[in-house]
Each structure stands twice: as C-alpha cells, then as structure tokens.
C-alpha cells in the first residue's frame, strides 16, 4: 500500500480554527479492487469494481473521491500509472467503465487483448492512498450485444405480425380501414385543380432521401402523378435535396407511364431549388404567388418553415393537404391547412392510395402491434411492483 501525503496548505496558514481538521493523515485505501472485460463493447473497455475505503463518509479523514489508474506492467513505479478517471464518494460499492478508443493512432487507444492492471486511490482533501493491484484483465469485443435483446424482441414481434397479416391479406380476407380525410381530399383536390386549369404544387419537405418520411411521401407522389397524368393537369415539384430530386423525377415519370402518357411528362415540372432552408421557402412562396396553384400538398419532413408555406398557400386560396412526422410542426399544419396527416397517418397514406391486399396487411399488423405496445406498458406497470430490477435490466439498452 503506497501512501504519499503532500500538504497543500502554504506555510503561512493563518487562523487555525477553520482549517483545523485538515490533518495530513491519508485515508485508508479502497479494498477488493477487481477488473474484468467490459461486456457488449468493441473490445476497448474494462469494468473496474472496488469497495469503499473505511474512511468513506464515517472515518477520521473523509474521502472526497476515488481516482482510477491503469498500467500494462503490474510492478511499474506509480508515476508510470496512467490516470483514467475519477468517481465521487458516497457509495458502498463502486464501479468504473474504463473505455478507450478503437484505432491505434488515436491518443486514447485502448490496448486490446493484453493484460491490463488497475489501482484505485482514495483521495481526501489533500492526501491520498493507493490500493494494491487488481487482477489482470483482457479487453475483447463480443459478437452480440446482450443489452439490445429487448430491441431484437420488439423487432421480431413486429416482423412476425407483418408476415402473418400479409398471408391473411393474400387469402383474400377483405380488411376494413377507417376513412382518412386527408387522403380522400387528394382526389377531390386534383379534380379541382383540373377544373381551374391551375397546377398542383407537391412539396416533399426538407428531408433527404434517407428520411423515411420522405420515402413515404414518394409513394403518394407516385399516385398523384398517375392521376395528374390522367387529368392532364400540370404538376410542380420544387426539390430541396439533390437525391430527392432524382428519385422524385423517377417517381413522377413512372406515374405518367402508368397512366399511359409517358411523353406528356414535362422535364421542368420536377426541379431543384437550393439546399438552404429559407432560400428554398422564399423561392416556393414566390412560385405560389405567381403560379397560383389550386392545390398544395406538403408531405415529408418539415421544420420551422412549415407555417411560412402554409400561410402563404392560404392567401392564394388553394386547398392544402399536409402531413409530417415532425411533432413540433404539426400544430402549424393543423391550424393553417385544410387537412393534416398526423405523424403515423403520413406513413399509412401509401396504403390508402394503393389498397393492395399486402399493404393493407402491413397496416393491420401495425394496429395489432399498438395493442402489443399497450399490453407491454400495462405488464410493465404491474411488473414494476414485483420485479423492479428485472424491468431496469430490460430497459437498460446501450
């Protein structure tokens, strides 16, 4: 056990009464220091455990914190031990995750697959004492993260529901689906645009093609393009993200060819504006006032600019159908637009428009899964009384 006491008080300590209890006697060191590989990681972590020093809270010289040191050689002089972390006092048993970096050239590289030793110092006001060496431990990475089992279960149950209801739908069992005002308005709105001979403005939002809300919006765009081709109504699709531009072009062309009019597709109907939020909105607002579209459809990811679009659209007197999964923007769409698809309804829109049995099956699966989630909440609340730590473990995902 190595003790070193270096007094912090400069020689000229003035009045004694307030600093009397600052003895130089070091606190007792922590005990039972042990180390083992950190589970569920990429081989760059060791978990260090130790019991509190007898001076922690009760003893002569209160411990304020513990410092964890690491070395590759057990008998290295103390100055070669590397400080890895600090933990405040106040518990009976302590644990510290010593985590480093994966690639070799980084400063904080954690040596993988070699014996590593630990010492823990109990530190008081200005003295400290260091424990003996821990056992040797080796960091290694694992092939399955056990803490993510809960996610695996939730995903597999969802997968199971979806497969089951797709088969049910394939056997031709008709599935009831409640009416969705926003979607029924799409056909009516396109008809209105045709009568007025005005274009339809379709905005896919500020998301990139990797945002699932944008992907859901593509499927609606495909259906709208097919109808627009049949009714010979112009369509305008100003895009914010270059990849969304390419995929939107592809989707609208498909809609026109589905309606048997591939050559009616005009090149400039799907066009790129810019990748900056408010410059994009300035341009789209300008287009709204000049082209006076009869119908504006906003489906996808929207941020602070949602109200700018919706309120300008309201001035031009067009029917506005909106839908997003950005919860912060839903209030503005609900207030300013005629119809709003709230969160999950945006994702159900493609099912409503295609009405293919398989898609209806996936929607049915989603509903049953909601019942499953409500069941889990109920079970969790009851389970909390009987096995709280099991519940903690289930939801401790990292």
């Amino acid at each position, binding site marked *: 056990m190595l003790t070193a006491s270096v007094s912090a008080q400069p020689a000229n300590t003035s009045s004694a009464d307030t600093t009397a209890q600052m003895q130089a006697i070091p606190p007792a060191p922590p005990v039972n220091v042990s180390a083992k590989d950190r589970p569920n990681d990429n081989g760059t972590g060791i978990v260090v455990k130790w019991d509190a020093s007898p001076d922690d809270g009760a003893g002569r010289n209160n411990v304020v914190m513990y410092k964890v040191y690491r070395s590759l050689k057990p008998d290295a002089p103390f100055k070669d031990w590397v400080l890895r972390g600090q933990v405040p006092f106040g518990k009976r048993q302590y644990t510290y995750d010593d985590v480093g970096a994966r690639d070799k050239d980084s400063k904080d590289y954690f040596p993988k697959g070699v014996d590593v030793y630990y010492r823990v110092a109990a530190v008081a006001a200005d003295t400290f004492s260091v424990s003996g060496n821990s056992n040797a431990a080796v960091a290694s990475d694992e092939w399955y993260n056990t803490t993510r089992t809960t996610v695996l279960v939730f995903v597999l149950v969802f997968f199971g529901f979806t497969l089951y209801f797709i088969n049910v739908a394939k056997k031709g069992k008709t599935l009831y689906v409640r009416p969705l005002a926003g979607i029924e308005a799409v056909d009516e709105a396109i008809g209105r645009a045709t009568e007025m001979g005005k274009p339809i403005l379709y905005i896919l939002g500020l998301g990139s093609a990797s945002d699932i809300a944008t992907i859901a919006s593509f499927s609606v765009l495909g259906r709208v393009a097919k109808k627009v081709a049949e009714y010979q109504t112009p369509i305008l699709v100003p895009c914010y993200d270059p990849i969304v531009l390419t995929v939107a072009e592809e989707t609208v062309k498909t809609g026109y060819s589905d309606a048997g009019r591939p050559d009616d597709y005009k090149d400039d109907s799907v066009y790129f504006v810019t990748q900056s939020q408010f410059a994009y909105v300035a341009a789209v607002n300008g287009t709204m006032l000049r082209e006076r579209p009869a119908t504006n459809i906003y489906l996808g990811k929207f941020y602070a600019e949602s109200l700018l679009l919706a309120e300008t659209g309201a001035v031009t007197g067009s029917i506005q159908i909106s839908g997003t999964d950005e919860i912060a923007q839903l209030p503005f769409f609900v207030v300013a637009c005629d119809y709003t698809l709230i969160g999950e309804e945006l994702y159900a829109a493609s099912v409503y428009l295609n009405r293919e049995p398989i898609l209806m099956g996936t929607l049915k699966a989603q509903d049953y899964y909601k019942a499953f989630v409500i069941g889990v909440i109920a079970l969790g609340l009851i389970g909390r009384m009987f096995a709280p730590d099991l519940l*903690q473990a289930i939801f401790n995902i990292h």
Partner: protein
Amino acid sequence: MGLTEILWQGLGVFFTLAVLSFLYKDNPFYKFAEHVVVGVSAGYFVIILYYTSLRPSLFDKLFLENTWTPTTGHLHYLIPLVLGILMWTRFSKKWSWVSRYSIALYIGIATGVSIPLEMKNRVIEQVRGTVLLTDFAWSKTGMLGLPAGLWDVVLIILVVCALIYFYFSKEHKGWFGGVAKVGIYTLMIGFGASFGLTVMARLSLFIDRVQFVNNWVSLVISKL
C-alpha cells in the same frame, strides 16, 4: 466602421426590407431578393460541401495531399467514388437507369439503419418513460393542488387514448369511438399549447430584425 462596411450592411438592410415587403404583396424587390438568395445559397453549399465533406472524406483518403498520387490503404474508398460517378449517369436519358444502383444502396442503408434504431429511440424509449419514470407519488402535492400520482395515471390513460385514435383497421364507433375522441381532444390541447408557446420565440425573431435595421439607421445618422 469604415464606409465600405456601412455600405455592405446597408445592402443587408435593403434585403431585409425587400423580404418584409412580401407581407404586402409580391413585388420586384422581393422577386430580386428571392432569386439572389437562391443563386447565392446554392453556390455557397457547393463550396461548403466540397471543402468540408467531399475533400476530407474522399479525395484526402484516395490521393496524397494535393497531388494525384493515390494513397494505399484507403482503396476501399474507390467504391463510393464509383457509386458517386454512377449518379451522373442521370445526365443522359438513355443510361439514367444505371443510377438506380447508387440510389438503391443509399435507400437500403438508410432504411436498414432505421428499423432497429427507430424502434428503440421512439417506441421503446417512450414505453420506458411511461413504465419506469412515472413514480405515482400520491403523497406529493402535484399540479393544481392535486396529488402528483393522479396526474401520472391520467397521463398513461391519455397516452392509450391517443394511441387508439391512430387505429386504422377498426371502426371508430361505440366505446372505441369514445376513447378515440378523448385521444383527438388530447392531441388538440397539445397542439394548441405548443402553438401558443412558440409565439414569443417568433416575435423575438422579428424584434432582432427591427433592431438590426434600427442600429444601421442610427449609425448612418450619427455619421452624417
């Protein structure tokens, strides 16, 4: 503040007023500001993405600094380079279908990541919040003078009602319809409140613009 600085800021003030004129009606000043910012911002992003993403994460890995001699060890970065160039097949009508390979990978990776991640971040996290974090403290005085535990129970009931509102495959009639109605009313109260909350933040945006113009005007007056 030199004269040129004042002139440049004056340009900023001009554009501020040009955009505010949109409130009255569409006019040449707004059209000018709109078309300028579209061009300038598009150009800005070309430069920013080139310097901050394309060079560091691709060119610097493939080629030694500022020379065309290829580095070793990063050859697997040739794949994204090829996929990126495949996107350019869209310039030609005939070969544009080749770009589907890049788009396929782009969307495949994005959707694949979302399945477990969104299940955890959105669904499991909310269930955890509802199950673990509500402490049903009946003794503690909660909001509106009623016990805190009561509001935890009300919260869970409202979450279930709102979830039921989103049911697609069941007729919203009878008791089921009633529960769904409670759900939609919860949503509407929530939307109304968040609308009201943002009024203050949006007003201060306009206040900042007024101060920007005001500072410039008083600066010019003081210089005259």
